[in-house]
């Protein structure tokens, strides 16, 4: 079946199979910045924004993207590059495999939560696993990123 949606601000027509998940479709169409990891809805690697909300693309039926706006991390490149500088400065990025999904969740959180506490941030990002960093560097980076934007 064919669906029409917007991906990273470009209108696209995609041929999909019934039951196919959005992550598979996006990667097949070259959006390989969408990573897949656990394939059980647990790790957050495959996070994309659908109509600005973070969702697990490994668990999102692709046909439901009809008429919707999807952002991968490349669609948020300006903000992602800016955030990456904070991650780098805090030593919070190692293998980088979780970064696309993690970054999108941080950007969604920035839109959704006003002045989040550390507990709010940890709660919002609990669905993004990182096996390298231990999260403390990421917390410092997020806090500084949010503070920079607050000013």
């Amino acid at each position, binding site marked *: *079946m064919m669906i029409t949606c917007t991906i990273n601000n470009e209108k696209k027509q995609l041929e999909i199979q019934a*039951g196919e998940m959005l992550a598979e479709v996006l990667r097949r169409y070259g959006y390989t910045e969408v990573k897949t990891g656990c394939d059980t809805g647990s790790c957050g690697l495959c996070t994309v924004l659908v109509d600005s909300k973070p969702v697990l693309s490994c*668990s999102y039926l692709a046909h439901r993207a009809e008429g919707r706006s999807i952002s991968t991390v490349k669609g948020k490149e300006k903000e992602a590059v800016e955030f990456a500088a904070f991650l780098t400065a805090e030593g919070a990025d190692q293998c980088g495999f979780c970064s696309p999904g993690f970054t999108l969740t941080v950007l969604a959180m920035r839109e959704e939560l006003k002045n989040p506490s550390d507990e709010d941030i940890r709660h919002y990002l609990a669905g993004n696993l990182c096996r390298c960093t231990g999260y403390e560097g990421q917390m410092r980076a997020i806090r500084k990123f949010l503070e920079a934007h607050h000013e």
Partner: protein
Amino acid sequence: MEIKQLVLAQTIEEAYEAVKERRATILGGCTWLRMTTKSLDYGVDLSALGLSYIKESGQEIEIGASTTLRSLEVDGLLAKHYGPLFSRTLGHIVGVQLRNLSTLGGSLAGRYGFSDVSTLFLALGAELDLYPEGPLSIEAYMAATDHGPHLIRAVRIPARQVQASYQTVRITHLDFPILSVAAAYTGGLWRIAVGARPGRAQLAAAAMQILGGTKKPEGAAIAEAARQAAAELSFGKDIRADEEYRKNVCPVLVRRAIEEASR
């Protein structure tokens, strides 16, 4: 997941027809279904039925079956009547990205033993609006082994200040609960639900009777109700804990839930 034939239902009648006549699998949030199912002969998607809403209607709050768990977690109307109950209960479920997909209807229809959602709604005395049967209490729904072809259209809970508490024990913050307990004082009576036993959630009816209609029960009554809940319900073993552990944890969580709800 492969779906050989997919229908994006435009009306609830069309969805029901697919379920009844073609034994179609209902596609709700699909977060659990896609992990447990490789292939479906027939799937019917409810996402176009306009069942994603939370509204106050007279003495009730009506929640559409396709409403996501994240919507319940952050909804202002629910927070007005129930305080932080929904955000605390649902915030344990994996992550925001999954809760933006998982639906209330899917969580209840699965009658999952591990479900935080069914334990909470059982304690709140929810009423399910089924198609085509109409209203049914959640305890009747949870107790049924085979309900026949049906759809959950909406769920209703009281639109009033309800004293309630949800307690669980888990290996990690985001894991399935080893045991879950919800207690609520609603409509002048206490309701105590225990889930993840590991079977589906059940009410501890005799324990509820001990508390009766007392809004702020005494410590001795709470302790007795907690003991009774563990005595009257059955517990089992799974990968997370054995029967004895659950039976010992149960009165602790019941006591905490009643104490918190009656503060």
